[in-house]
């Protein structure tokens, strides 16, 4: 198995696709068996995808738009909010199948259908993939994951990231096999010849503040401990909502270092958390989140720092390597999903994140996308959707 990446900030979409694909081919030593595509929304996606299709032919293609840019072993690309990143896997001994479905009114049904189609496209009917790699419109990830797990059960790891745009303006898109899509879910069923190892971390610490969601519906949290959620949250965080609390509005950047957490599992009594990122306050004092929430769930106010947002990605990559007892020589490459909210908070230092990742991955190829929702597999082998998370998948040359 060989992995290579290429990135470009070329503005012309067809030219960008051509340049990036030719560079990828040269590094890979031949055509890929899977092509992962992360463009920013500033690109003309149909033109970009068509140009890739012209060059790559029928190679399975999986992609989603990324927020502001991409990062790779060569660093961050996207200073002007425009970038394209490609990752190619050349693995004649493996099987890869990509499929897409419209989310429509039944995201769970779409999850069921898309994973079955991806497995069939890989030519491995009935066999559980080593990894389900996911990209979907933000807003339906839990249901999509539930649909995938209806088919595969809870043990098959699921990882990936939700499509994103540059300004939370709903311009995000997905890519599957030469098509640019909207309101879709894209899945790759991976059966690599080598092994795959994952890590999925929140990287935030619990504060002393916690309460129970007493009223919630979908992705809206109305009350905590019987009081308006925004009021309670604002008190916990020392007033980060500021004047937005009274009038309502976007609070995405204000809340990045103060997400709400839920215990996702524990090891030896030590809990680990998945996070929910409050993105807006309603005039009525409710919080909207990038994850679903249910009444009765215990919420913990988590605390993060800019410093940890910079260093954390490297640590997650190290954890993924440790999960497979890998050293860099055994590593073919990696896929990194980094929360767009975190990236926007530390935007000037995002280059340092790429450097840290490259160092931890021993300079091996990796491609990172910035997403509006992250999916990954915790140490208890259970896959979840979360916010403000980092998900790293490392690919080993051979089987371990």
């Amino acid at each position, binding site marked *: 198995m060989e992995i290579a990446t290429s990135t470009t900030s070329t503005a012309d979409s067809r030219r960008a696709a051509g340049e990036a694909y030719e560079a990828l081919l040269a590094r890979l030593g031949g055509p890929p068996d899977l092509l992962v595509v992360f463009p920013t929304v500033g690109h003309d996606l149909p033109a970009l995808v068509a140009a890739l299709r012209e060059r790559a032919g029928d190679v399975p293609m999986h992609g989603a738009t990324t927020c502001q840019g991409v990062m790779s072993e060569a660093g961050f690309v996207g200073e002007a909010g425009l970038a394209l990143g490609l990752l190619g896997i050349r693995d004649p001994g493996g099987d890869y199948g990509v499929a897409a479905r419209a989310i429509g009114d039944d995201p769970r049904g779409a999850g069921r259908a898309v994973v079955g189609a991806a497995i069939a496209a890989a030519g491995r009917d009935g*066999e559980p993939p*080593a990894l389900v790699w996911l990209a979907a419109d933000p807003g339906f990830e839990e249901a999509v994951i539930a649909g995938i797990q209806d*088919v595969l*059960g809870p*043990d098959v790891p699921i990882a990936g990231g939700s499509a994103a745009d540059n300004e939370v303006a709903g311009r995000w898109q997905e890519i599957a096999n030469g098509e640019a899509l909207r309101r879709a879910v894209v899945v790759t069923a991976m059966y690599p010849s080598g*092994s795959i190892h994952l890590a999925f971390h929140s990287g935030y610490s619990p504060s002393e503040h916690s309460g129970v969601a007493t009223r919630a519906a979908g992705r809206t949290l109305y009350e905590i401990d019987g009081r308006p959620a925004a009021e309670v949250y604002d008190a916990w965080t020392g007033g980060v909502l500021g004047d937005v609390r009274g009038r309502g509005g976007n609070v995405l950047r204000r809340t990045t270092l103060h997400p709400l957490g839920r215990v996702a599992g524990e090891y030896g009594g030590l809990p680990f958390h998945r996070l929910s990122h409050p993105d807006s306050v309603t005039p009525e004092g409710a919080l909207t989140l990038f994850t679903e929430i249910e009444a009765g769930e215990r919420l913990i106010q988590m605390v993060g720092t800019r410093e940890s947002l910079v260093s954390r990605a490297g640590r997650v990559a190290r954890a993924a390597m440790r999960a497979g007892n890998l050293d860099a020589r055994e590593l073919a490459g990696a896929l990194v999903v980094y929360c767009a909210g975190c990236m926007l908070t530390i935007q000037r230092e995002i280059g340092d994140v790429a450097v840290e990742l490259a160092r931890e991955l021993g300079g091996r190829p990796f491609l990172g996308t910035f997403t509006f929702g992250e999916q990954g597999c915790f140490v208890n082998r259970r896959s979840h959707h979360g916010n403000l998370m980092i998900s790293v998948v490392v690919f080993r040359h051979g089987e371990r």
Partner: protein
Amino acid sequence: MANADRETNLEDRVRELEQRLARAERARLAAEEEVAELRVELAHAGERGRVAAAHTERLLEGLEVLGEARDALSLFAEVLRVLGDVLEFDAAFVVGFAPEVAPQIVSATDARLRLIAWPGGAFTDRVLAGRTVALFDLAGNPEWRRVDPALREAYTSALHVPLHALHSQAMLVCLHRRRGFFTADRVTRARRFAALARQALQTAEHLVDLEDDRGRAVELSRAKSSFVASMSHELRTPLNAIIGYCEHLIEDPVAQRGPELGETLGRIDLSARMLRELIGNVLDLGKIEAGRLDLHVGPVAVAEVCRLALVTALPLAVRRGNVIRVDVGTGLPELRSDAGKLRQILVNLLANACSFTEAGAIDLVVRADRRGEALVFQVRDTGQGLTPAESAAVFLPFAQAGPVDPRRLGGTGLGLSIAKHFTERLGGTIDLDSAVGVGTTFTVRLPLAGPP
């Protein structure tokens, strides 16, 4: 002024300290966050280490037992026991495959699974070709759908591992109630252990082969010793008779001219012929074993060959009070073969029939087979017959049925073995049908066209 400066300095100092405090707080939070992550990872690594150690210990124990296993069944049982701990399956079984026989469940963790009639098919063929395959839902697989639902419905996911060795082909099937339980890491674990199990299986088969070879060698050596003892007696008997009669003729002038001279010469002639027959058989066997058997193929005068065989076997038949009847069908098609070897086959079969029959009837019948492709020679006797075990060993060299007395029967135990070798060299087959107390029929089929 001095007070104002002092106040400014103090304010700067407070700001500086506040900034330091904020940095310290951020550093504390970052450290706390990393510590929390590392604690979870440490606990997980510890858990993985404990599991890996338990698996390793279990595998080593299992390998010890596998190394000592001397047959496939005990080995399969141990494979299931070890993998039960390592793969955490709910149930498992091993399907054995053999040519022209339906697949059999040869080992299982649950007695009910032994009732599965494994259908086989393209999926099974793929596994037997060397691929380990997991299914997240076995009900979706066409071969599993042909398994009795009452036996499979308790399980959802399955893992199929090839377990082929030198002589045996088998498939390990692990089952779990949870959908998609057999993930890539479990598949890898199963594949690695199966490689060790296959090695152990091959070793066990090698050992069994060696034991068999040793047993055969010991048996052959014993038979050869017994043959040499019987042979020296057999050679001595006619030789002694020839020498005795010759001395009698040399020393007794009356006997040289008396009326019994013809009878004495006849006895010398019979003993000499027996001796020649015996030496001929030994030489034939020697040629067969050395692979130096020459064939002289041409049209065969079947009736004449049968007559010559009858003439050769008749003295032995008379000695045992038997009658030999020859029935050669009319209008037989032409047979191309080696007439000398055919005669020898018939002589050996008739001699064998005479040896095991006393005061009975022996028939030599020749017919064309129904498809017109071969001639069929049958030698039937009304002798003591053979048990199934004796029938199975009858064509082995130096084997003779039962506790025989070669002096009484006059055989060396080589005749049937030679007949079988000759028949097969001529492109034919030889079979026998026997019942104790009823008699034995040997059937030789020779292709009309001759040996290939």
